[in-house]
């Protein structure tokens, strides 16, 4: 029963969502299946909200243990937990209490700490990309040469200086993005969608049971 009940629930819920998306009422008004599907989708939102809380509890358990045992890097764990506590307290008071001081503090903490840190992380990627492009883009084969030439044309087409060098770079870049890129992306998307549909069908029919946990 521990296996059968979740499988039956998965099948029923999956079929409700699937059929509600396929069928429609003659006058466009909500019909029973659609109402059930909407209710179930609302549950997903509620469960997702709980997942945020659950993740926080989990973080406290794991990092609390690291701090208590003073394992290597415990100071990082302490910083993480302190940040969670401070941001949670300030955020709750700012939002629920509508307190102007905490509201400003909340926004300032975000603008002055999280925003620059996040932007710095993203900016670091530019340096890795530059180094990786220099090392990886070598004309070792025909395929590599095509990729290299396409990359350079798109880079020149997207940067204003490219147009200054030759006015046709943006047009070539746009064509590369609109035609070969779109064709390739569409093929990947359609392939992934068919794969996703097949996997969903296997889950609905109980052939795929990974979501139940365990090794089966």
């Amino acid at each position, binding site marked *: 029963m521990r296996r059968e009940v979740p499988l039956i629930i998965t099948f029923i819920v999956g079929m409700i969502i699937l059929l509600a998306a396929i069928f429609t009422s003659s006058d466009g008004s909500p019909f029973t299946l659609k109402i059930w599907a909407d209710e179930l989708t609302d549950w997903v939102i509620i*469960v997702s909200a709980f997942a945020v809380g659950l993740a926080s509890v989990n973080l406290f358990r794991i990092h609390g243990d690291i701090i208590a045992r003073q394992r290597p890097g415990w100071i990082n764990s302490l910083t993480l937990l302190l940040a969670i506590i401070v941001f949670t307290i300030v955020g709750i008071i700012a939002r629920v209490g*509508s307190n102007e001081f905490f509201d400003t503090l909340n926004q300032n903490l975000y603008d002055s700490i*999280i925003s620059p840190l996040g932007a710095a992380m*993203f900016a670091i990627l530019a340096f890795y990309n*530059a180094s990786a492009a*220099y090392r990886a883009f070598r004309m070792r084969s025909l395929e590599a040469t095509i990729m290299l030439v396409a990359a350079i044309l798109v880079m020149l087409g997207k940067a204003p200086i490219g147009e200054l060098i030759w006015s046709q770079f943006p047009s070539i870049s746009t064509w590369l993005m609109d035609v070969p890129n779109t064709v390739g992306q569409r093929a990947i998307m359609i392939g992934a969608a068919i794969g996703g549909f097949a996997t969903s069908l296997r889950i609905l029919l109980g052939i795929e049971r990974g979501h139940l946990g365990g090794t089966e």
Partner: protein
Amino acid sequence: MDWKKLQNIDRRIIYILLILATAIPMIKPLGIPISTSAQAEKFFNIMDAIPAGEKVLFSLDYAPSGAPDVHPSAMAVMRHLMDKGVGVVFIAFWDAGPMFGEQLIKSYEEQGFEYGVHFANLGYLPGGESAIKRFGEDVVGQVSRDFRNNPVSSLPIMQGIKDTRDFAAVIDFSAGNPGIQEWVRQVQGTLDINFLAACVTVSVPQTMPFVNAGQVKALLGGMRGAAEYETVMGKPGPSVAKMDAQSLGHLLIIAFIIVGNVAFFLDKKAK
């Protein structure tokens, strides 16, 4: 000559040169002219055609990491809509989104624009794709209170809004998933909303099929998209200034690629 050395230049040299190539134009802009793409012009025309008093929904689906590439587009479009007297409502399916909404609002509140009348921040809705679907079909049913804890039904800007079709346009500012694909799949396709998007540069290739299919009416790609929008608008802003840095950064990377390949061939020839 040792061509191997030129194929393996120390990464620290690359980093230093890239810092210089991007930092110098930020301090002393070169003023390289920016042409505008058909996408930016189409985006601008769609926004410009929205009459004053209408409302546009911004879905702020990005975090601080992607913000430098997508937030400038939100700033540029917001500026255009505020100038036109079009209301803007924010929603986010990324937890960081509401804070960017507050950032966008801040300067306009200081100029005398009124929260709840000219704009509103509905906050963050967890649940990813499922949340986008339900919000798209039933805006007020999904968000009872806004980010500032006001009842949504009490906000003048939300009067007459039932689902996302009641907005003159919906724009997803996206740095990944959930984002453009989920909006197209769950809302644009079923409700046929007027849907536009702005995304980080790396997401442009994945988004192009939706643009070419007409599901995304127009797309602003990365900071270049924002710079083009500012240029079409005739009000060059921070994005235009940053494009010089991007130009020199791209040129430097291309130069390194060429050096690496020339050294590779000469090394092969020497053997």
